[in-house]
């Protein structure tokens, strides 16, 4: 196989509150021989909130980020669902609206950049599955996760709206997503079925609507627990923050104790590839990862 090479848009979370996500991403890329060039120039995607305040500004900043992947001539991979949604949405709007693209490019020209639309944008989960391949991944597994029941938590912004997401996620159906389940199986684990796996964790309303957010988080963990999961796995660091850090609030809102260790997608892959807990940053979890 030709060596895979991508431009990595880390997003802010992986550089701040979930350092273990960046660490484990780089660790498994190394193991799998995937080259990741960090886009250090990139700014925050606005996390679906900046656009509520200033939509045009959000477009310009996200387009600038993509420009840097285009300069490298590489596909941009994201490691956060919300970064994926915002970036892919920007790309789609600019690629389908020449007038808007021209307007954005007038601004970008002020800093010597031009958005062309030449780079694809895809989440690392889908790059692994579609470009690296599940079979190739399974062949590299050193420590199969066969003793674990693992609950996949997809996160909204990788699967909905499917019309947009299907441009890069291999046609995943948001009502019956399979990618993360398939990845669990490729790692030798047992994938757990539960109703909340494709539902929202509530992250984006956490400050302004704490009760709603807490109940959604609680429902997700409770669903996984009731399906006998040993732990959860997610491709989204924002979901991770909700599920890993905020189970106390969720328990209170739900009137029931909910708590499960939650791994980032690359941490799970890393365990199967034989990475050490330190290489995967498992010490950074608030809900203790007590099974390794």
């Amino acid at each position, binding site marked *: 196989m030709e060596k895979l090479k991508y431009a990595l848009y880390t997003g802010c979370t992986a550089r701040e509150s979930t350092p273990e996500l960046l660490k484990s991403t780089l660790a498994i890329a190394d193991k799998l021989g995937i080259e990741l060039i960090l886009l250090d120039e990139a700014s925050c995607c606005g996390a679906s909130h900046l656009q509520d305040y200033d939509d045009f500004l959000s477009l310009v900043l996200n387009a600038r980020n993509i420009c840097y992947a285009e300069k490298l001539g590489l596909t941009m991979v994201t490691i956060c669902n919300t970064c994926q949604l915002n970036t892919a949405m920007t790309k789609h709007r600019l690629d389908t609206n020449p007038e808007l693209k021209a307007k954005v490019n007038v601004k970008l020209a002020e800093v010597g950049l031009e958005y062309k639309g030449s780079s694809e944008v895809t989440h690392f989960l889908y790059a692994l599955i579609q470009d690296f391949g599940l079979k190739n991944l399974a062949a590299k597994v050193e420590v199969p996760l066969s003793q674990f029941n693992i609950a996949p938590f997809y996160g909204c912004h990788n699967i909905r709206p499917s019309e947009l997401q299907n441009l890069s996620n291999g046609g995943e159906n948001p009502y019956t997503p399979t990618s993360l389940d398939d990845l669990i199986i490729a790692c030798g684990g047992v994938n757990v079925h539960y109703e909340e796996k494709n539902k929202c964790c509530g992250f984006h309303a956490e400050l*302004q609507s704490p009760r709603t957010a807490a109940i959604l988080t609680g429902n997700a963990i409770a669903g996984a627990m009731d399906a006998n999961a040993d732990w959860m796995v997610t491709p989204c660091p924002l979901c991770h923050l909700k599920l890993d850090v905020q189970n106390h609030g969720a328990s209170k809102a739900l009137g029931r104790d909910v708590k499960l260790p939650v791994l980032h997608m690359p941490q799970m892959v890393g365990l199967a590839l034989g990475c050490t807990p330190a290489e995967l940053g498992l010490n950074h979890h608030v809900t203790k990862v007590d099974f390794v």
Partner: protein
Amino acid sequence: MESIKSQQVTFKVFRFNEETDYLPYYNTYVLDVTHEEVVLDILNRIKWDHDGSLSYRRSCRHGICGVCSIKVNGKGILACKSRLFDLVEVFGNEIIIEPLSTKRVVKDLIIDKKDFWDKHASVKPYLVSEIEEHPASEHLVSPHDAEKLLEADYCIQCGACHYSCPALAINEEFIGPAAFAAAYRFSADVRDEASLQRLHTVNEEAQGVWDCVKCMECAEVCPKDVNPIEKITKLHNMVFEAGIAKNNVATRHAVGFAHSIQKHGLLDEGELVRYSEGNIGVMKHIPEAIAMFAKGKIVMPWNMPKSKNLDEVKKLIKSSSTVKF
């Protein structure tokens, strides 16, 4: 697939009669389904050939009246528009047919949509305009202005989005995606004069746009591609543009991103929470912050990472900002 003309499907149909039943139950039917049949055809066959007491709503059979919306395996659909073969491809051969909301059932698949209509009415879903009684000419809207409606007027009030919205399922005050789409539709109309009033309605805490969790369920489920969340974003923008955004945790949360990006390129997560909540509100996050700090999840201000070529970002924020708070 196309060569298969019929296949066997198991249907589990939700049954409940408010007047006689304590608990709902499911009836199972195994039927041969042909490739051109839609869910409504199956409901009709069950009613006509198996059990005349099955109740459901239907009228136009053309995806226009919006009354036949139900859930199939958890997905909101129009019974008259959804082909069985397409559903089987996604969900397999066991098809579970339920009302849009099991909490609001009157009988079987028929629900009481009062909450939907009340919310809808609350946003004044009609044009408010002083017009002459006998105008000399038509009141024309240019194609350019009509485009601004973003096809929000395609909504048929089926309620599929409303009863799929997780924010609404928890917070009953939340106005919900369909009514927000309607609020946008009329507020974006150049002839309308009640836009400010509507914006005040959608700007209120708990009921307003700020409580949307951005799950994109409404965009996914809508059989008319209305894309309510897109209109919700527009309403957010209009609230800021109209200068009526209140200074509260929700608005500061959106504006805080711009501040942070201006300073670091990246988001300063801790500062965003402090700025959004204010110095007192932020106190309630302290236990969480301590737990995160202990695990190396909090970056201290002096270690805050910055984007390379930050001057570009600053320049763009200066030149591309379109609103003020």
